[in-house]
């Protein structure tokens, strides 16, 4: 199948002068593409598509099916219940509505406080790290380092540091004359301060690195021009840096919202959901319902409602950033 075209190609390729080579190569590439059997690309794709189909595509559909059943993993019968798992979530009498909406509320509180901080603090870090000074790479690495660690390490570490009695955080607060008996992990709103603070410390390096890449893409000429026009540092930041970072900021906002809505490990390990279930997030509620109590129909329904909320939120962010552009 492939042999007939080859001599022609050789003829074309051999005498082609250097200037024409680029054009000729494009032509040859599309021709060689046609020569391959239709199966070749699919054979390359096969291993990926098997994994992708089994663990990504199929579960998306399977999840809907589960959510329409009274799916108790440990019991033999899994009767069809239609939308009841969903309607139950909106019926205050049901057993699932309470934990789910408490979780949604906890997630909302966490998101509302962590996202703005994770937009502003990393930007400040990025602006400082974007300046030219010796050792800059070392400082960058320091701010990024906690992000490399997993939530399990972060969680057990800060449970220790924030311990009410033996934790060093309360100790040093006492040393500088502040209250040294703060129940960081067992009482609200202190627990929220702890969870948000730790998350900001842990992940600010990630957002800062993305901002940094964005800062480096802003053409220096814009700053020069602004300087010529007599703009001071703050004015240059407002009128050059911020507009230049808009696409990056919209991306960071989106990623940070998604990460915050998915918060789980910090409250699972640090506060254990306490006090009561106040810091038990939506993901926490979903996994406990589905994977601890094996009420998978309910949990699947919850995960789709959470997804719907997340999608609406994403659309709002998208719209917000597009609106300002025009």
């Amino acid at each position, binding site marked *: 199948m492939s042999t007939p075209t080859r001599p022609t190609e050789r003829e074309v390729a051999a005498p082609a002068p250097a200037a024409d080579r680029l054009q000729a190569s494009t032509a040859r590439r599309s021709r060689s593409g046609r020569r391959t059997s239709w199966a070749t690309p699919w054979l390359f794709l096969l291993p990926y598509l098997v994994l992708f189909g089994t663990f990504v595509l199929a579960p998306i559909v399977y999840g809907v099916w589960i959510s329409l059943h009274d799916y108790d993993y440990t019991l033999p019968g899994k009767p069809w219940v239609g939308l009841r798992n969903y309607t139950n979530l909106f019926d205050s009498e049901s057993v699932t509505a309470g934990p789910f909406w408490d979780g949604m509320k906890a997630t909302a509180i966490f998101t509302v406080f962590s996202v703005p901080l994770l937009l502003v603090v990393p930007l400040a870090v990025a602006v400082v790290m974007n300046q030219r000074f010796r050792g800059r790479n070392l400082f960058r690495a320091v701010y990024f380092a906690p992000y*490399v660690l997993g939530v399990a390490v972060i969680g057990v570490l800060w449970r220790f540091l924030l311990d009410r009695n033996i934790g060093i955080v309360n100790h040093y607060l006492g040393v500088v004359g502040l209250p040294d008996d703060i129940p960081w992990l067992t009482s609200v709103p202190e627990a929220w301060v702890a969870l948000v603070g730790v998350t900001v410390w842990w992940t600010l390096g990630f957002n800062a690195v993305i901002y940094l890449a964005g800062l480096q893409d802003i053409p220096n000429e814009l700053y020069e021009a602004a300087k010529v026009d007599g703009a001071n540092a703050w004015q240059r930041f407002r009128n050059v840096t911020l507009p230049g970072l808009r696409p990056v900021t919209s991306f960071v906002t989106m990623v940070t919202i998604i990460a915050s809505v998915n918060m789980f490990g910090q409250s699972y390990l640090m506060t254990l959901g306490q006090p009561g279930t106040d810091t038990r997030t939506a993901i926490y509620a979903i996994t406990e319902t589905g994977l601890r109590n094996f009420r998978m129909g309910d949990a699947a329904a919850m995960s789709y409602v959470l997804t719907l909320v997340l999608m609406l939120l994403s659309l709002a962010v998208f719209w917000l950033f597009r609106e300002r552009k025009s």
Partner: protein
Amino acid sequence: MATVLERPAAPEATGERRGRGRGGRLAARYVVLTILALIFISPLIFMFVTSFKTRQEATAVPPSWIPDDPTLGAYRAILDAEGTPVLRWFANSMIAAAANAALVVATAAMAAYPLARMDFRFKRVVFALIIGTLFVPPVILIIPNYLIVGELQWLDTLWAVIVPTAASAFGVFFLRQFFLSLPNELEEAALLDGANKWQIFSRVILPLSRPALVTLALLAFLTNWNDFLWPVYVLFSPETQTLPPGLSTLQSANNVRYDLIMAGAVIASAPVLALFVFAQRFVIEGVSRSGLKG
């Protein structure tokens, strides 16, 4: 001309105008930066320090930054312990993360190659489908994947933490972008020499893509090594756990033995921190690149 004009405006020059103040300002800036950086990583330093303390000193008030009596006791205690086989968890984590990274890179590279360099029917559909799932929140997959993994008899085995997360849409996207940027000439030369597509892929494309493959492998390793939610629910016996769920059992089993818990945390951090120090540029660039193209 332009460069000459730009020079005086460079950031360093601003201080110069103030003459002697420059050195002082620079020093002050370093002092501030260094203090902030030290405060920032002090939790990690304290974790490290505590792991070498005795049981009593670990919870002593005021806290010490240099152990009075440095000891490997905490490490010895957890490595041998019956219900918390940290060494086993470490091996499990290594196997899982390495296998997962290999699977991610192999399948994503193979999938990205035709998507970048061949024309075929439904190419756009396949690519759009893969990219579309980047926007699917992972929470949707938890319940059905638990049941699928159960059907496959993979619960409480390392398969459960190696395979299901291996279909990386980001990996396909990332490698496709890289493959698109490679020059055509070498591929053509190989074609003229009679190489088939597989040979071109394995002998031309892959060797040229080493930086991208390494970056993806590092990111996949890091993600798998640190994964917490999924292993917490799919691995339940002490022997099959990876380090992250292991740490949580260590915490609930030894709520007051912070010397032990910190030793466990150091063991869980050491490989990724070492990898990070070693491959810092790769990791940070990989992250920022993934950010910009998203």
